[in-house]
């Protein structure tokens, strides 16, 4: 080994504390990057391959009853490549031994062969035989949570009648990558099933012979999605079409892609934070090292080493530190990636989940960490290269300090405080960067906890205050308002209120937008419209109340007339007055008084949803009866959903908090420890002299650690502010679906402050040990 390389290894050994802390920061950044990128890429690839191999449809449409004879018209729509008509039906699964019934979806298979689109992947077993009306394929995740296997029998309530089904295979489909019964909040694999049965087996029970109620299409390359949707809507309208939609609104696909988008965002942000902190630490440590080794650098140059080879020597040192961190990060990232994929495996149902470590990801991770190393080293490297060998032969001049007009501020504090203060003033850049770095640690903690706070707030406002009903019953299509009375008459029901929702297209000049208008009873008490602050909002009489963001985007103000076209039923265009705007949490909505909406629609009183307040004792029976009503599409219980959510989130939140605490500590310790070590090395002579004069250990510690304490204290409010800001930005990343104010509880601030302070204290103690062992005589003897 070359002597210079030997020096490198020994220098590394000397700096091991600093090397270790920097390595951890780099490793964290690299690990997060690799884990998330791997998950992101694996899911994306798996999903795309699955969609292609199982022919996932591009367009989806539901209708009441469409005769099979209409199918050729759909095939003839320009731009359509493939068509699959189907029967879909909701079922209830009365599980023995469970109070909470599971629900499911029956999807028809063509009477012979496999579906042309949204094909099933059969894990075990086989397709139902044509003509065998009791055979079904069952969604694998449901079967697993209930320990069902091919050969088992299962009762379902279909259209009010109990049917005995025999499971002949376990299956998946691209339509149900994320399989949930309409309510993401209450996702649980055991509560939602999908059954695939031959069409003939379903038809009979529904009087749907020779007809279909669902159609899915695949587009030709280059075809216009919107034109095909319009065309399809026109064809299906006479048969009770509910409005066709593209993949973007298909629930499973929507959920998977928004999860992927989130993952991609985080893949960029989190590693960026870590690697900038790493660059900063490299900068601090290398700057000090170069200062310490000034005369060595000069000697090397005097001995005939060129500027660039001496520069390269120090670059190698940094590269090695970052390299070790990267290797550690790759190992950690692979492991973390496995964990992350494990979580996704529980949620996303794919035939096979390839968790493959892409060499490209590794390469990018290592490259960006090297870039951060070079960025951090650049300043010092320039100094090394420019250091004139002759000038460095002389001992370094004492650092220059200035008195300042602000000295009166510290005059009463005594000389120790003044030393701290002057040190800070001498290196404002260091103070700024350290404070920024530490505030990142605080911010990470705030961001992490903030998600918990915000979800809590949202849950509180939505579930406790806006949705006061015990049960909400959603219908497949609007029903005459009489249904409210008949539900009110059911046993155990205290109160019943009907809501009407109408999907519409709103037009104002050139601006057009699709949204849902909620018709709410004036005197209703079970559902309340709340703004972002959780305050109750009254819906004005006779007009439309719009989400303010939507109004702004469309350039609409109160008093404007807008054009409105229902996307269901009779699609005549109408004019409506915009009576005001509201800043609600749910994105793009419109609200009207129920009567006003009915008048606008020009229809008899209709409702889409009925809200019930129910005697708890009567709930199980009521639930069963509601599930069995053919007109009912969805039965939701806000309280149960909230409970389930809290249960499921508890563990995940704890895990997330722990990971964030770890990351924040890595950053905080990295910064405080390295700053303290550098400060100690720079001032050990001063401090030893002070000890010789008679200052105590405590007093000299104060001079050294005072500066760090000030950095930590300054970083807290800044970090809290930054964290809140970032949280706000995260929340408003998708304002069209969801908006709410940044909610950060005091607990979160206290938590972030305490964790950072603890990390700082821990680092300070490490350095304090070195301070206590300061070799008074040795330090004074040496020149540097």
């Amino acid at each position, binding site marked *: 080994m070359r*002597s210079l390389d030997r*020096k490198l290894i020994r220098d590394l050994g000397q700096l091991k504390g600093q090397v270790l802390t920097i390595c951890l920061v780099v490793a964290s950044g690299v690990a997060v990057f690799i884990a998330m990128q791997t998950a992101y890429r694996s899911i994306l690839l798996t999903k795309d391959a699955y969609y292609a191999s199982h022919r996932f449809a591009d367009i989806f449409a539901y209708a009441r009853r469409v005769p099979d004879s209409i199918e050729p018209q759909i095939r003839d729509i320009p731009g359509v490549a493939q068509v699959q008509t189907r029967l879909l039906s909701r079922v209830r699964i009365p599980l023995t031994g469970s109070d909470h019934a599971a629900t499911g979806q029956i999807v028809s298979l063509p009477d012979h062969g496999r579906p042309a689109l949204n094909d099933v992947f059969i894990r075990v077993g086989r397709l139902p035989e044509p003509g065998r009306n009791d055979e079904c394929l069952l969604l694998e995740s449901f079967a697993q949570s209930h320990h069902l296997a091919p050969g088992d029998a299962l009762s379902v309530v279909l259209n009010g009648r109990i049917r005995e089904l025999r499971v002949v295979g376990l299956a998946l489909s691209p339509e149900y990558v994320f399989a949930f019964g309409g309510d993401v909040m209450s996702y649980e694999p055991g509560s939602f099933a999908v059954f695939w049965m031959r069409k003939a087996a379903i038809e009979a029970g529904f009087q749907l012979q020779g007809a279909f109620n669902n159609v899915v299409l695949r587009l030709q390359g280059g075809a216009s999605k919107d034109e095909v949707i319009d065309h399809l809507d026109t064809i299906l309208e006479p048969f009770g079409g509910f409005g066709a939609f593209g993949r973007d609104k298909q629930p499973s696909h929507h959920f998977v892609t928004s999860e992927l988008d989130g993952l991609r965002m985080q893949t960029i942000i989190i590693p960026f934070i870590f690697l900038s902190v790493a660059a900063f630490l490299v900068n601090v440590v290398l700057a000090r090292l170069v200062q310490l080794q000034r005369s060595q650098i000069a000697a090397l140059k005097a001995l*005939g080493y060129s500027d660039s080879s001496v520069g390269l020597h120090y670059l190698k040192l940094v590269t090695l530190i970052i390299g070790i961190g990267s290797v550690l990060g790759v190992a950690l990232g692979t492991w973390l990636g496995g964990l992350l994929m494990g979580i996704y495996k529980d949620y996303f149902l794919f035939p096979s989940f390839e968790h493959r470590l892409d060499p490209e990801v590794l390469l990018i991770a290592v490259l960006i960490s090297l870039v951060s190393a070079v960025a951090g080293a650049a300043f010092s490297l320039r100094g090394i290269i420019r250091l004139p060998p002759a000038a460095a032969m002389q001992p370094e001049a004492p650092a220059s300090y200035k008195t300042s007009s602000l000295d009166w501020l510290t005059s009463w504090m005594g000389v120790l405080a003044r030393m701290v203060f002057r040190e800070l003033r001498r290196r404002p850049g260091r103070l700024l960067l350290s404070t920024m770095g530490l505030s990142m640690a605080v911010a990470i903690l705030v961001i992490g906890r903030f998600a918990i706070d915000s979800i809590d707030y949202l849950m509180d406002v939505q579930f406790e205050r806006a949705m006061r009903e015990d049960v909400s019953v959603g219908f497949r299509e609007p029903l005459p308002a009489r249904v409210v009375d008949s539900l009110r008459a059911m046993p155990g029901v205290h109160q019943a209120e009907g809501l009407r929702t109408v999907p519409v297209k709103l037009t104002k000049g050139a601006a057009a937008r699709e949204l849902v208008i909620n018709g709410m009873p004036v005197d209703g008490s079970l559902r309340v419209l709340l703004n972002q602050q959780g305050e109750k909002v009254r819906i004005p009489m006779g007009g439309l109340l719009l989400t303010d963001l939507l109004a702004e985007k469309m350039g609409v103000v109160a008093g404007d007339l807008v054009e409105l076209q229902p996307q269901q039923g009779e699609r005549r265009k109408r004019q409506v007055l915009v009576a005001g705007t509201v800043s609600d949490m749910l994105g793009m909505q419109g609200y009207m008084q129920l009567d006003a909406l009915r008048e606008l629609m020009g229809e008899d009183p209709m409702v889409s949803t009925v809200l019930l307040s129910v005697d708890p004792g009567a709930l199980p029976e009521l639930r069963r009866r509601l599930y069995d009503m053919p007109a009912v599409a969805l039965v939701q219980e806000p309280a149960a959903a909230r409970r389930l959510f809290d249960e499921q989130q508890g563990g995940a939140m704890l895990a997330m908090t722990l990971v964030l605490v770890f990351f924040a500590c890595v950053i905080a310790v990295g910064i405080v420890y390295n700053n303290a070590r550098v400060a100690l090395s720079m001032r050990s002579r001063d401090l030893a002299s002070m000890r010789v004069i008679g200052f105590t250990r405590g007093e000299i510690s104060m001079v050294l650690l005072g500066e760090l304490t000030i950095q930590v204290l300054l970083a807290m409010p800044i970090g809290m502010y930054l964290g809140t800001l970032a949280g706000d930005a995260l929340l408003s990343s998708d304002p069209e679906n969801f908006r709410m104010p940044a909610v950060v509880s005091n607990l979160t601030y206290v938590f972030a402050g305490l964790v950072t302070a603890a990390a700082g204290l821990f680092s300070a103690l490490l350095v304090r040990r070195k301070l206590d062992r300061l070799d008074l005589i040795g330090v004074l003897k040496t020149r540097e």
Partner: protein
Amino acid sequence: MDKVLSARDITKVYRMGEVDVYALRGVSLALGAGELVALVGASGSGKSTLLNIMGGLDIPSAGSIRYRDHDLSSASEAELTRYRREHVGFVFQFYNLIPSLTARENVALVTEIAEDPMRPEDALELVGLGTRLDHFPAQLSGGEQQRVAIARAVAKRPDILLCDEPTGALDFHTGVKVLEVIETINRELGTTTALITHNAPIAKMANRVVTLVDGLIASDESNAELTPAKDIRW
């Protein structure tokens, strides 16, 4: 005598903010092959500045400096590096050893980049440290450290050995040992040597004594009689 290094009318000005500091104000000096020249003068008189320019660590503000037929005053940084690497051995007042490398490795640092070097062990043997090869600088006394520095300087078989107050940080006894080593190298290897000292008696071991005052050469005298290093007292 064959001129190895010659300086003509060298001026060196350091700009310190508003004021110009004249370290050298027109110095001409030549080193003959195999000569041992002592540079003496008060602190601040320009000795180190002159030595650094002769060693290619620095370039003059005006005037010319030539090593054999190379013009150093107009040389690029890369050319100066090559000059230092191939022809010059430096010994500094504060040794400037690399603390993380052993005696042997400090010498190897130079032999690895030199063309026809001695073995590091031989160089250390030459300065009487053949038994301390694997000691780190911190485990050596000041005089021993300086001898390692000399071994490091001569291991490449330089044409010129430049020593800036090599005994400045040493006590008398160890100082003499170091001077003896320099003397041996000058005599036995025939290395042209320039030695800065502010101790007048040390100059008695040199062929020539050049005295600098305020950036100018005040006198340049040959010693009729050389005092061996071991007999020098100060």
